[in-house]
């Protein structure tokens, strides 16, 4: 086969935590900038959260945005936001609905704008409607013109609903973060839960910051994207934390930074591989996928990048900041009974012959007995790194005898 790509040398030993002051400051700055942009510039809210009336129109020939904007403004319902949407025949126009005194008035305005726009750009009917309309025109003796504009999407969200949607979105995000943190707390020590919660908040805030800076449309799918980012980022963080805990139990006499560095390095290759495959898939979606979810895709891509960054350079350094110590972990070489048996075995070897060892161990039933095992030395003379795997080997052979 072809030579395999190694993103990192097999035994990478980069002092990733060495940059922790820089990266923590960078993260804090990033969050500060995001919050600053959010409060100064605000979000470009889509109609889901702001209310309004959206048209996604496809004209039969090339149109200029300025003309469309002028024509729509002339209808007398304020100046809509108009932008090209994909091609020079596609236009997205969003009318803001002026805050009316009552919901009824708002509904009436929406109805008026809709019919005014339909009159200005007669809709192109599809085959079924066309048949009916032509029939109606013939039987009723009316002139019939099939319009030239395809109404690809028409959306209207009332101001009351948009408020509810915004509330629900914020609530869902907050609950998701807390639920995830609770799960981490349940599975790990509290420092891990706090670090994970902070890292998630970091990811969410910077994503919101990205939307504030570039003024991408922030709507319901964006909230979905943010929750997905949270899910992805925590996924990454959990993998690192899981490994961190494992290494802490193995090397509980070493300084925490050293142990965390080992954990980061051992998961680095996986972290980057997964990020890359996910980014590749999202890139395909960005380039070839439907235009309607492009902003959604951008949010997800950013989320993969920031989620990866935060697990490496924010969540893990936070563990150090919170004073996690490897000593807090019991020296635990093995996690289950079988392995415990092996550990006892290693500690109680009584006699070693050429290729046989004899040991006294206490079994599950509490009875001490002598066991004999054949020793098999590794065939290649490569260094034996993990003490754990050595023990496992003995155990397996024991079992077979």
């Amino acid at each position, binding site marked *: 086969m072809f030579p395999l790509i190694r993103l990192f040398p097999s035994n990478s030993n980069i002092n990733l935590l060495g940059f922790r002051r820089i990266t923590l400051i960078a993260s804090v700055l990033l969050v500060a900038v995001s919050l600053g942009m959010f409060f100064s510039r605000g979000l470009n809210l889509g109609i889901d959260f702001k209310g309004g009336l959206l048209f996604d129109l496809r004209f039969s020939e090339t149109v200029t945005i300025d003309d469309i904007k002028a024509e729509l403004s002339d209808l007398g319902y304020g100046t809509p936001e108009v932008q090209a949407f994909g091609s020079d025949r596609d236009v997205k126009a969003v009318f803001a609905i002026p805050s009316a005194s009552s919901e009824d008035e708002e509904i009436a305005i929406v109805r008026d704008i809709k019919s005014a726009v339909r009159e200005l750009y007669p809709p192109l009917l599809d085959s079924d409607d066309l048949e009916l309309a032509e029939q109606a025109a013939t039987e009723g003796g009316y002139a019939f013109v099939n319009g030239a504009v395809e109404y690809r999407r028409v959306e*209207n969200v009332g101001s009351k*609903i948009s408020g509810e949607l915004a509330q629900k979105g914020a609530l869902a995000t907050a609950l998701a973060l807390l639920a995830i943190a609770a*799960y981490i707390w349940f599975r790990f020590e509290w420092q891990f839960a706090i670090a994970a919660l902070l890292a998630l908040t970091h990811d969410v805030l910077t994503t919101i910051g990205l939307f504030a800076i570039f003024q991408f449309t922030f709507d319901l*799918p964006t909230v979905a994207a943010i929750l997905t980012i949270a899910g992805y980022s925590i996924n990454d963080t959990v993998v690192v934390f899981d490994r961190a805990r494992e290494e802490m139990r193995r090397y509980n006499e070493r300084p925490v930074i050293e142990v965390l560095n080992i954990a980061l390095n051992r998961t680095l290759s996986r972290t980057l*591989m997964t990020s890359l495959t*996910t980014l590749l898939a999202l890139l395909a979606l960005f380039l070839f996928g439907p235009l309607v979810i492009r902003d959604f895709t951008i949010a997800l891509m950013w989320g993969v990048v920031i989620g990866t960054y935060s697990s490496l350079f924010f969540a893990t350094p936070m563990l150090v900041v919170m004073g996690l110590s490897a000593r807090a972990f019991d020296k635990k070489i093995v996690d289950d009974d079988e392995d415990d048996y092996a550990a006892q075995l290693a500690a109680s070897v009584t006699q070693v012959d050429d290729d046989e060892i004899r040991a006294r161990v206490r079994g599950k039933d509490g009875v001490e007995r002598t066991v004999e095992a054949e020793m098999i030395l590794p065939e290649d003379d490569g260094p034996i790194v993990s003490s754990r795997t050595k023990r496992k080997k003995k155990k*397996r052979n024991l079992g077979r005898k």
Partner: protein
Amino acid sequence: MSYTRWWQPVVVVFVVLAGMYFAAPNLFPRATYDDTNTAQNYVPAPFLPFQVNLGLDLQGGSYRLVRVDLEDARASYMQDIQRIGSNALRDQGIALRATASDTNVRFQFRDETAMLGAREILRGQFPNGNFTDEGAVLTVGIDDEAFEVVKSETVQSVRDTIERRIDAFGLTEPSIRIQGQDRILIEVPGVSNIDEYLQKLELTIHIVSRANATRNPNETLFMLLPDAERMLQPGQEPISYLIEREACVDGADIQGTGVSSEYGVAVTFTLNNRGTKDFASCTRNNVGERLAIVLDGEVISAPNVNEAITTGAVQISGGFAFEEARNLSTLLGTGSLAAEVESIEERVVGPGLGAESINKGAIACLVAMALVLVFMAFAYGLFGLMATVALVVNLVMLLGLLSLFGATLTLPGIAGIVLTVGMAVDANVLVFERIREEARAGLDPGDSVASGYGAAFSTILDANLTTVIAAVLLAAFGTGPIQGFAITLTMGILTSMFTALLLTRLLINLWLDGFKPSKLPI
């Protein structure tokens, strides 16, 4: 010793075949509906006829959230009491005069004996009513608790009428659900305008008053209504009619409806027995007067009464276009809405955009798979290829699962699938990295693989469960498309855990057994 346990191929083959079996119906054309609205399914036996549902954003259609206006519910319930009560009492030969206000109905009888008799009859008709009497006058109201029941009945009745109307036009598979107290969510695939199904369409026939319209009318007896704009000739000023408040004929008495184009386009309908009787006496007493046919507060036609009409056949020529007349007649046949409804959220996707989204989504999915395949092959060689085999199987199983549960695939759902393509290999990446470590630590190929899977398992479980937590909350709080995304993501996680843990492990074990390699190609 063999690495493959006997149950591994059995379980994996069974689950994968099941996935393929449930996914297969999607290869056949989508179900269509014939004129009688019966599903025409093209999925042959032995496959089940379950295909993935496409969301409105993929097949095109209307999503509409409306609010039922219950402010007038009390007033309109009072009008019902007045109308139904009066009719019931008159049928018993009791003379009365009834006036309805917004909160109660006042029945005036000839004497107290007549009132007492009437009270018993009305109690039978309106068990929820609140009756107070004073001499020959009986007042019927309703208390708040009973009114809540009326409200929810109103919303239910509005929902049912909308459903009848949509069915009357033969539209496929609408979904009409009541949400909360006064909201109805209507989803109709394949239709871009559902406004006409949401009109109240309350049709009544009144007598136009001889009194001068400009004089201040007595509001309990008369009302001033504008004529419908469609009746106007260009340049003509709109006029108003002063009409008697009490209707001769009510929309509830309309039976069969149709369209006639004999003398211009007209909507025709026939009245039931009671309506025929009312209409006959009304026209008999008012020969030479004008009738006002009122639809939703507008006079759509004001014909002269030339003679008593005893057949119960009514024809409205209101300057309709043929199509308009046909729609109106169909809708009138399904009854009027019990209350007005107002759109508070509307989303319409044209069929063109939906089809384009599916195509683009599919292309994105294929490109994503190709990119991931190449990348995985270069990174993990043979094992990488096995992981991509698992990825393909994963997509088939995801499709099968979505079909089996009748889940709805939405546009963000497609994004969820593409995201799954990227993330599904994560479990394998975790495992492969562990296997590499174990192999470097000197374990033989079989032990490296076993130990790699074992060590990565709890990490994979933790990592996926946290994503599921986020997805479940999305499903709980999201609406429509977002829920679709959450469901696809969750199901994708389930299937990817199966393929990444069991399927690839089986492939690798079979390969270990078959080739007995001394060194892992990883």
